[in-house]
């Protein structure tokens, strides 16, 4: 039997992958584990290895196709097998009637007239869901029920060809149009009526380059919308005096130079302090599950980074257990892989908290949207040298001041909990030696 080559599932909640490129063609001989194609999941690009040694046959999808996971995308013919050994091309499975629970169905059938019961059986209608207009469920009741249903086995929208054409021309979604025809069929006048209510800006006549929403872009769009709509965000801002942190960083850099390691970035230092603060504030290192909250034992800090295809968030695992030097090294390595689009799946999985730093662009402060399923994100602005009052005697000095804004999911994190976390951050950054306490 030829070996089916399925689109692998790389991630728990992954549903599909986009084929970036086939490295092999129909008829090519491939070895077990050899890379056959590259696909892009919602998070990363991945090389897919062959599940067997043999000849690649019947590639069913081309570059750019979006394929649901576990779909057969090709076959591998083993030694001695030919195309004739391949299974017959899949035919569309027959549309099945909706499943109906037999027991409640029998009970309900007793309340229905024989004609209604037969109709329900033929149409796969669950009689328990049919409202009766009198003593018993009659044929009329079933018809009314059917008329109000749009089973998947039927065309989703009943519309005349003219209505479809007008909808196409005006860029109107037929599902949004109320049909005035028999059985709710949409007719062209219905579409024209709807069109009048839609502002002209929707018109397709305006010129634009249209970018299809795929891969990472689609994921970003879906997750940001989901996050902003579902989790109530609160935002809190603090200013941090970075004088001591800068001193520490200078000393670290001297050490790094000795070890021939890259210079320590502010971000690395902030990650260290954030990880420390998260250990003391577990609700910031959590996920909301609807009916429970997970307080994660690991502290895995994601750092938002720009990659060629869009935003990626490589994750520093166990950041609370690493020194600043180690954090810095890993950060440099992850950033490089992100730039080259070479992040592995494990590099972007398992985050429990995210840091987004736009300080290098001179952004003073901003509010970030939480990266689900996490429950908080820290937006780091730029450090600015400015005069501040430094003691009770109102002495003023020029100090580097950094603005931090925390966005927190208010379902999980009370304002006071968020404030405590920020207060710990200030302590950690203004007195880094406290981390040793």
């Amino acid at each position: 039997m030829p070996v089916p080559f399925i689109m692998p599932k790389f991630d728990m909640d992954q549903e599909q992958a986009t084929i970036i490129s086939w490295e092999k063609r129909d008829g090519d001989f491939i070895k077990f584990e050899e890379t056959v194609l590259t696909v892009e999941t919602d998070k990363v690009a991945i090389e897919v290895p062959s599940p067997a040694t043999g000849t690649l046959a019947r590639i069913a999808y081309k570059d750019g196709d979006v394929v649901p996971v576990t779909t057969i995308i090709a076959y591998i013919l083993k030694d001695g097998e030919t195309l004739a050994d391949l299974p017959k091309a899949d035919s569309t499975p027959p549309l099945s009637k909706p499943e109906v629970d037999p027991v409640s169905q029998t009970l309900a059938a007793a309340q229905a007239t024989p004609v209604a019961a037969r109709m329900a059986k033929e149409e796969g209608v669950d009689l328990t869901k049919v409202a009766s207009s009198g003593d018993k469920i009659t044929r009329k009741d079933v018809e009314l029920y059917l008329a109000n249903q749009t089973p998947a086995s039927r065309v989703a929208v009943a519309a005349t060809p003219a209505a479809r054409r007008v909808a196409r021309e005006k860029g109107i979604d037929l599902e949004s149009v109320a049909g005035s025809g028999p059985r709710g069929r949409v007719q062209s006048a219905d579409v024209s009526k709807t069109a009048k209510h839609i502002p002209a800006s929707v018109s397709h006549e305006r010129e634009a380059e249209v970018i299809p929403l795929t891969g990472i872009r689609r994921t970003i769009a879906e997750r940001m919308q989901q996050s902003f709509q579902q989790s109530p965000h609160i935002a809190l801002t603090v200013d941090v005096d970075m004088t001591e942190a800068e001193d520490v960083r200078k000393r670290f850099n001297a050490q790094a130079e000795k070890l021939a390691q890259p210079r320590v970035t502010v971000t690395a230092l902030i990650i260290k302090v954030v990880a420390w603060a998260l250990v003391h504030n577990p609700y910031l290192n959590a996920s909301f599950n609807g009916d429970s909250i997970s307080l994660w034992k690991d502290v895995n800090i994601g750092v938002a980074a720009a990659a060629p295809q869009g935003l990626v968030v490589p994750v520093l695992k166990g950041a609370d257990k690493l020194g600043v030097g180690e954090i810095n090294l890993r950060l440099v390595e992850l950033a490089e892989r992100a730039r080259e689009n070479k992040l592995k799946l494990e590099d972007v999985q398992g985050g429990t908290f995210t840091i987004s730093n736009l300080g290098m662009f001179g952004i003073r402060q901003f509010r970030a949207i939480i990266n689900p399923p996490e429950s908080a994100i820290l937006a780091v602005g730029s450090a600015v040298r400015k005069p501040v009052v430094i003691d009770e005697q109102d002495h003023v000095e020029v100090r580097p001041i950094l603005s931090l804004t925390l966005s927190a999911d208010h379902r999980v994190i009370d304002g006071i909990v968020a404030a405590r976390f920020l207060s710990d951050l200030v302590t950690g950054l203004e007195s880094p030696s406290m981390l040793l306490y």
Partner: protein
Amino acid sequence: MPEMTYLEAIRQALWQEMKRDERVFLLGEDIGVYGGAFGLTHGMLDEFGPERVRETPISEATIVATAVGASLLGMRPVAEIMFMDFVLLALDQIANQAAKMRFMFGGRTSVPIVVRMPGGSGTGAASQHSQSLESILMHFPGLKVVNPSTPYDAKGLMLAAIRDPNPVCFVEHKVLYKTKGEVPEDDYTIPIGVAEVKRAGRDITVVANNIMVMKTLHIAERLAQDGIEVEVIDPRTLLPLDTETIINSVTKTGRLLVVHEACQTGGWAGEVIASVVGSPAFDYLDTPVRRLGGRDIPIPYNRGLEKFAIPQDADIEAEIRMMVSGKV
């Protein structure tokens, strides 16, 4: 312009063409002394003599076969089938001989015959003398099927049919024989294969033939008072069918109804509908396309039932109203 009946218009066409072209002659049952079952050839025997107005035995196969033979030798015969129902007896001559010869001889001969046949119900002539069999004739490549609805069209199409180098079945309607209309005395032809928009309208296209054109025009007049504008198209020729005119019309109105007296099942309405639905006009359809044909029963002798068997004014009106109001 003089007014004359549909029957007189056809007679005038035959008369004038026989005067103009001595190759033209008539043959059929009782067409001479008796003047034809409907009196269409009345007076022609006296005018043109028995050589050119030839009485035949009661054998439709012989009538058409004789016409085919004569045409091959250069004549322009016009054969009469007394009732269209009897054309079935001559179908082998029409379908297997007349329609095919030009093709089978590689175009080196042709069969310029006209076979006239009155069809249709409405005269109490019962089921063997009342049929509308034009749809059957449309199934034979090589034939032309002409089907006028007005005296004007009847004369112009008859002159075109006689002059056409190929076999033409000329389908007349018994009830139309007595209808009147303006017909020029002059020689004129109407091109075969060209439909006519008998009435322009924006709301629905109704394609109808012979007597149904008249019924639909009558209904359209009434509906116009209610603001429903019906476009009535008479194909005039069923084979070849002028689908372009119909498609253009449906593209404008978005609705199509086909009305004919012929039995609905297997009737030519299906041909019209398939042509439209398969054309770019599809994207303009805003109502299911519909047809209104005769009931699938032999035409009854009883006058009441005879009317019941074919679409009546009220049926056409109801159908149009239902379609235009989007209730179908």
